[in-house]
């Protein structure tokens, strides 16, 4: 099972949630090159959202180089090579977003030890991959 989870009450738009969720599945290796994603219509029907919402998410992932969208074959995962470069701007943006996110969830009442546990877990996953 490859589960895509979307929260309709989340402040993040559904299109963004789809992009983020599929990207996590791709980075974690749950989706591999050659795997097909559901057709836009099918996923939109199951989520109860407009076709354009799913199409936009797929297009974003295509632009990022994760997917190849064919007229007949639909969306398919492609192998994507990323240069292991040290871009200072990317690093800074990542650090800033991470700090913002930690502050936000802390402000919303998530206990510090829980946040630390999640970050450790994430770090371990990264080290293993």
């Amino acid at each position, binding site marked *: *099972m*490859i*589960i*895509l989870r979307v929260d309709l009450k989340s402040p993040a738009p559904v299109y963004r949630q789809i992009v983020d969720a599929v990207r996590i599945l791709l980075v974690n290796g749950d989706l591999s090159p050659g795997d097909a994603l*559901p057709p836009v*219509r*099918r996923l939109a*029907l*199951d989520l*109860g959202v407009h076709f354009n919402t799913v199409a936009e998410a797929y297009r974003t992932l295509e632009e990022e180089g994760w997917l190849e969208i064919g007229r007949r074959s639909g969306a398919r995962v492609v192998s994507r090579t990323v240069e292991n470069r040290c871009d200072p701007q990317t690093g800074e943006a990542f650090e800033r977003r991470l700090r913002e996110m930690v502050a936000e969830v802390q402000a919303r009442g998530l206990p510090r030890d829980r946040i630390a546990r999640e970050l450790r877990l994430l770090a371990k996953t990264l080290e293993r991959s």
Partner: protein
Amino acid sequence: MSTETMLFVPLLILIGGLFHIMPGLTRPDLFFAVTVAPEFRRSSAARRILGRYRAIVWIATLIASGLALAAGMAVAAVLLQAIGYLWGLVSANRAVRAYAAAPSSVLEVDLATPQERLPGGLLVAALPVLSLVALGLWVGFHWDRLPRRFPVHWGIDGADRWVNTTPATVFGFLAVQAFVCLLLAGLAWGLLNWSRRISTTGAGAAAERHFRRRIVQLSIVCEYFLACPAWFALFQPAAAAMNAWGLALAAAIVAFTVSLMRGGQGGSNATVTAGTAPVGDHTPDACWKWGLVYVNPADPSILVEKRFGIGYTLNFGNRWTWVVLALLLVAPAAGLILLR
């Protein structure tokens, strides 16, 4: 008492019985078309609402049966029973809204779920239509072998409406039959491709898939049965063949209906765990009018699960639904014009 009345009154009581059990067939976290906590059904408030609904249904059924028996007013009896059912449902729906629960806002989709396909493929669904096209071609080449008149309607005692054999009546009759078959094939295809899947993970998904497949099979079986009258009309076999056809069709519908009812709406019997956030059917309560009519322009689905009863209903907020409805009106209208 006429034979019709003797058959009609038990039919009213049977329908009353179906209305009686209908609230128990819905998904466990839907009660009278309102999203509720799964354990709400067992509460005293739920039992009181259910009791009132059933009392209204049975009072209407008894008065309708009395009308049919005493005055032979069949149409009025059917209308009265339907009004009683609707009144009971709408008042129960209003009462349950006070206990509505916020459904889970989290949707899960298994991206690895395979696409569901028509059983036997497209050819199996298209065969009845193709057989009628073949019959039309045969008729074109063997016009002299056709009877001078042919039946276009059948009752309990056999054919009760006949028309003269002309190109308009023959080809019109075949076209209407083919159109009905096409609609049933379209319904089967639409259920697989244009309906909302509520569960795509776990046991609920498997049960729902099974439920949907049963309805698709029922549509295709009915399509095969409904292609037969065209052959009966033009070749006029013995009455026994027609009776066997009628009995077999009724038996198939009853068998499928019983199977669907046993599984509950969407195959949902016992798939919801008490204490969890209700999932419902992922459609907003506010989009259901009187618990029966679904109007949601933001939902791309054309077909969604009914919230009360078994099967699917149309999303009247989708403009394609109106195209489907217009097509549904074309067949009877064409039939009336061509077979006058």
